[in-house]
């Protein structure tokens, strides 16, 4: 976001266009995340999760990491969200949304989340991070590819084996156990 338009101030407000875009995306993402967590209807939670992932992909673009943004769209929106939506449809009971969405101890979870948020925000705003520059650095995709297939080639292969194992394990776990031939109970 280093072009002239992003640096210019929004008329009427004190912010630049980049700041305004960041605030809008952050609000959309946090609102969608809250909808995921709080909505009674789980299918709406799944759809709100897609909105949160899309807003996060746009934030990755603002952070000048284009390949991560593309992977976010392809993997999260394209694969994981669809997987979650299918799982929701497979596990919907006929009664519709349940009356009690949260545990009885949900207040303790809310308290823990608020306390953790307070502590983390105090820590990250109070820490002087070393070597931080005042502008976004562009992540060059060709340098990233060279790094991925040179320095990080072993982790890449391990991840590919892990994905293969996960696919086989997922199919094995979700498979319906058909009683076969002679093993069928009488």
């Amino acid at each position: 976001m280093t072009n002239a338009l992003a640096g210019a101030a929004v008329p009427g407000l004190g912010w630049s266009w980049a700041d305004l875009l960041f605030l809008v995306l952050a609000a959309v993402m946090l609102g969608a995340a809250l909808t995921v967590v709080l909505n009674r209807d789980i299918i709406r939670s799944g759809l709100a999760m897609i909105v949160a992932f899309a807003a996060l992909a746009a934030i990755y673009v603002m952070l000048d990491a284009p390949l991560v943004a593309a992977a976010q769209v392809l993997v999260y929106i394209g694969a994981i969200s669809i997987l979650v939506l299918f799982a929701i449809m497979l596990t919907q009971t006929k009664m519709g949304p349940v009356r009690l969405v949260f545990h009885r101890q949900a207040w303790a979870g809310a308290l823990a989340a608020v306390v953790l948020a307070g502590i983390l925000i105090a820590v990250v705003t109070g820490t002087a991070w070393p070597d931080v520059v005042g502008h976004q650095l562009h992540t060059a995709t060709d340098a990233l590819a060279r790094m991925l297939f040179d320095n990080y080639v072993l982790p890449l292969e391990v991840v590919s084996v892990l994905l293969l194992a996960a696919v086989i394990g997922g199919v094995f776990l979700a498979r319906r156990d058909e009683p076969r031939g002679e093993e069928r109970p009488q």
Partner: protein
Amino acid sequence: MSHSLDAYLVLSTLLFCIGMFGFLARRNAIAMLMSIELMLNAVNLTIVAFGAFVPALTVHASVIALMVIAVAAAEATVGLAIVIAIFRNRRTPLVDEYDTMRE
């Protein structure tokens, strides 16, 4: 604001805590898995934000974020398969009704 690391870290903190609340509070197993995905995304946002503001980490952060995305995909596959397998036996997606070992 969009040119400071702190803004992205605070945003990531809020997303992580929303996901943590969902994981602790929801009864539906798939809602808990969705909350885990939100937390993984918050961690990824932290990694990419550090990569965008620290010159020594710029390319490494994207590599690590891509690895996290791949592992998250594997986790979602196995987790949802487990939920579907349990649902086939117990006929409910609510985790507080999985109480066979309590009795």
